[in-house]
C-alpha cells in the first residue's frame, strides 16, 4: 500500500472509531465515553506510558532491549522531586532527565561494553532504581534535614517550588470555551468531537505538549536523518553498520542514554502531576510502556496508539465505573459491523471462496455479539476489581484481534562485539 493510502486508511479508521464511540455514547447515555474530562485524563495517564515506551523504542531500535525502564523512571521521579523543591520545575526537568539518563548509562555500560545479557542488566536496574532512591531519601529526606522542614518524608519529597505552565487553545477551549459549550449539548457526533478536542487542548501541561511532540520528533530523527539511519542500523545489523564505518558502540551508548532520559522524563511528568516525588508512584508504568512499545510494533505511531488505548481505558475506569460496561456494547457493535462486512463479502465473492472457517468465524461473531449485548443489558455495575483491569483486558483483546505481524529490530537483544560475528 502506498504512503497516501495508508494515511487515508488511518483517517477513515479514526473517523469510524469516533462515530462508533458517539453511537455507543448515545445508546448507553454514558457521556464520559467521549467527554473532555475523559480525554484529558487519558492524556494525563498516557503520557508517562508513552514516554517510557519512547525510551524503550530508542533503545530497542538500536538493538538494546530495555527492561530497566521502570528503574530509570524511578530515578527520574526522585531526582525531579529532589531538584524541584529547591530550584523549581525547569531544574526538576533537567535533573529527572539526567537521573533517567544515568540509569541508561549504567545499562549501556553493562550491555554494550561488557556484553551482559540485556534482560539481566535491566532487571538489575529495576532493583537498583528503587534501592538507590530509597537510600537517598533515607539520607537526604530524613528528619532534621532541610528537605524534611520543607515537607519531605522518607517516602515523599517536598513539593516542587513554582508551578508548571498549562496551555489551552484560545477561544475554542478557553475563555469563551466554544468547544465546552458544544460538548454540553450532547449532540450526536458534534458533542463527541468537541469533547475529544477540548479534552486534548484544555489546560494542557507544557510537558504534555513536549511529550506529544517527541513522538513525531522521534519518527523524524529515526527515520529521516542520517543519525537515525545509523541508529536503526545498529539494531538491524550492527556488523553491516560497523563495516561501513559506523561507530556502533557510540550509537548504542547514545541511544540507551537517550532511552533512559525519556524514561526519566516520564518520571518527571509524574512528579509534575503530583507536584512531588512519591515513592512507588511509577507503579509499573515502565513495564506498561514497554508493552505499549511492543504493541506498537517498535514504531512511534503504534506506540502512541498503544499508550493512548491504555490511558483512555484507565481514565475512563477511574472516572466512571459504570461507563466501563459500555465496552460490552462497543464490542457488540464492532462484531455486528464485522458481520455485515463478512455478509457482504459472501454475497459478492465467488462461492469457491467460502470456507467452513469463515462460517465458523461468523457464527462465533454472532454468538459473541449476542453475549456482549446481553451483558450490556444485564450488568449495571461490575465489581470494582473488574473495573480496574479494563485497560489491561482491553489491551489483550486488541492484541488478540489485531493481526499479529510484529517485527522487532533483527538484532534486538543481540550482544554485539566489534569484529565478531558468528
Amino acid at each position, binding site marked *: 500500500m502506498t504512503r497516501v493510502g495508508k494515511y487515508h486508511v488511518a483517517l477513515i479508521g479514526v473517523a469510524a472509531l469516533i462515530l462508533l464511540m458517539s453511537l455507543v455514547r448515545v445508546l448507553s447515555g454514558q457521556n464520559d465515553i467521549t467527554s473532555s474530562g475523559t480525554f484529558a485524563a487519558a492524556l494525563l495517564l498516557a503520557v508517562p506510558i508513552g514516554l517510557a515506551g519512547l525510551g524503550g523504542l530508542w533503545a530497542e531500535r538500536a538493538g538494546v532491549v530495555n527492561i530497566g525502564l521502570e528503574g530509570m523512571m524511578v530515578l527520574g521521579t526522585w531526582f525531579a522531586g529532589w531538584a524541584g523543591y529547591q530550584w523549581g520545575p525547569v531544574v526538576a526537568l533537567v535533573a529527572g532527565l539526567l537521573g533517567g539518563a544515568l540509569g541508561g548509562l549504567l545499562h549501556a555500560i553493562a550491555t554494550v561494553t561488557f556484553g551482559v545479557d540485556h534482560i539481566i542488566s535491566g532487571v538489575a536496574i529495576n532493583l537498583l532504581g528503587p534501592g538507590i532512591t530509597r537510600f537517598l531519601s533515607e539520607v537526604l529526606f530524613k528528619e532534621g534535614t532541610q528537605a524534611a522542614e520543607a515537607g519531605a518524608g522518607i517516602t515523599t519529597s517536598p513539593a516542587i517550588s513554582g508551578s508548571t505552565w498549562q496551555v489551552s487553545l484560545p477561544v475554542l477551549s478557553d475563555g469563551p470555551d466554544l468547544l465546552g459549550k458544544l460538548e454540553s449539548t450532547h449532540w450526536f457526533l458534534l458533542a463527541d468531537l468537541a469533547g475529544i478536542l477540548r479534552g486534548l487542548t484544555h489546560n494542557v501541561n507544557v510537558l504534555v505538549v513536549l511529550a506529544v511532540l517527541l513522538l513525531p520528533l522521534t519518527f523524524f530523527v529515526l527515520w529521516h536523518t542520517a543519525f537515525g539511519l545509523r541508529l536503526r542500523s545498529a539494531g538491524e545489523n550492527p556488523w553491516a553498520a560497523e563495516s561501513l564505518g559506523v561507530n556502533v558502540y557510540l550509537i548504542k551508548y547514545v541511544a540507551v542514554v537517550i532511552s533512559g532520559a525519556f524514561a526519566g522524563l516520564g518520571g518527571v511528568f509524574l512528579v509534575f502531576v503530583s507536584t512531588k516525588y*512519591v515513592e512507588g508512584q511509577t507503579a509499573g508504568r515502565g513495564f506498561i510502556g514497554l508493552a505499549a512499545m511492543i504493541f506498537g510494533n517498535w514504531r512511534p505511531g503504534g506506540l502512541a496508539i498503544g499508550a493512548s488505548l491504555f490511558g483512555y481505558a484507565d481514565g475512563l475506569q477511574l472516572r466512571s465505573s459504570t461507563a466501563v460496561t459500555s465496552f460490552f456494547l462497543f464490542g457488540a457493535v464492532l462484531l455486528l459491523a464485522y458481520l455485515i462486512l463478512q455478509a457482504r463479502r459472501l454475497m459478492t465473492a465467488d462461492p469457491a471462496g467460502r470456507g467452513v472457517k469463515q462460517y465458523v468465524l461468523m457464527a462465533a461473531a454472532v454468538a459473541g455479539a449476542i453475549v456482549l449485548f446481553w451483558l450490556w443489558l444485564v450488568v449495571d455495575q461490575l465489581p470494582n476489581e473488574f473495573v480496574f483491569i479494563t485497560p489491561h483486558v482491553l489491551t489483550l483483546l486488541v492484541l488478540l484481534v489485531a493481526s499479529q505481524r510484529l517485527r522487532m529490530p533483527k538484532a534486538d537483544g543481540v550482544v554485539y562485539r566489534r569484529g565478531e560475528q558468528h
Partner: protein
Amino acid sequence: GGGGGTTASQEPTGAASSEAPKSSDLKVGLAFDVGGRGDKSFNDSAYAGLEKAKTELGAEIKELSPSADGSNRGDLLRQLADAGYNPIIGVGFAYAEDVKKAAEEYPDIQFAIVDSASNAPNVTGLLFAEEQGSYLAGVAAATKSKTGHVGFVGGVESDLIKKFEAGFVAGVKSVKADAKIDIKYLTPDGDFSGFKAPDKGKVAAEKMYQDGADIIYHASGDSGLGVFQAAAAAKKKAIGVDSDQRQTVKETDLQSVIMTSMLKRVDVGVFEFIKAFQGGAKGGSNTTYDLKVDGVGLSTTGGEIDDIKDKLDAAKQDIVDGKITVPAKP
C-alpha cells in the same frame, strides 16, 4: 485492659512535659507497616507516640521498618523480642497474624497491634473508630455542601478503608438523606499502589467535581494530594485524613482547600499503651480509640468548620452516648 478509660491528650507530640523523664528499664520496640518511618502519615504518627514515651516515660526505643514487600514482618517482631524489647508494637492490621504467632512464641512479652483486635492473651488490640470520625466528616461535608453532592476517594479497597467510607456515607445521609455520594477506589485490595498514585486520585476527584460534587473526603494516603489538587483547580473543598493535613501539607494553595481532616490519633494509642504497660497492664483485650476518648476526630485548623461546630458536637455527643451507632461496613 488498661488505657481504656484514659483521656487521650489533644496535644501533638513533642510538647514538653513538665514531668521529668523517669529513668526506667522500659525497652519499647515498634515495627512499622510498609513505607516505614517518615511516611508523614500513619507510621509517623505511631512513631510520635513512641517518641513521646521516650521523653515522658524514659523508655528506650527501637523502631524497625519492613522490607518493601512486607515479607519480614514476623521476623522483625522476633528480632525485637530476641533483643529484649518489651512491649512490642506492630503498626497496621497486616501485623495481625505475625503478632499472634510472635505472642505465642514469646508469652512473656506484651504485644500491641494497631488497627487489629487482640488475638492472644499477651496482645493488646489498639483499635480506632475511623467510622466515627468519618461520620463527623460526613456530617461536616453534607452540611457545608451547597450542591448536596459529595464524594469519597479511597486508595485501596481494603476493609480498613471501607470503614472510612461507611462512616462517611452514614454521616452524610444523617444530614441529607438524598445527598448524592460518589465513591471511587483506586486499586484493589492487595495492590497498595493506590496509596501512592496522586495522578489517579486527581482524575477520580476531577470527575466528581465536574459532576457537581463540591466536597470530597479522601482516605488514600499520598494519592490524596491529587484530590487536593483537583479541589484547588475546581475551587472546591476536600477533607483530609489521618493527620491534620492542613498543617502537614506544605503547599499553601492546597492548604486552603482542606476544609478539615479526620484525625486518627495513632500516636495517642501507642503512647497510652506504653504507659499502661508501664503501669502493669496486661493484654488480651482491645482498646478502642473512638470519639469518646478523642482517639478520632476532626481538625479545626483554618476554622472552616467553626460555624457548624454545634452540629458536629451534637453528632459527636449522640455517638458517644450511643444514640447513633455508626456502621463499620458499607
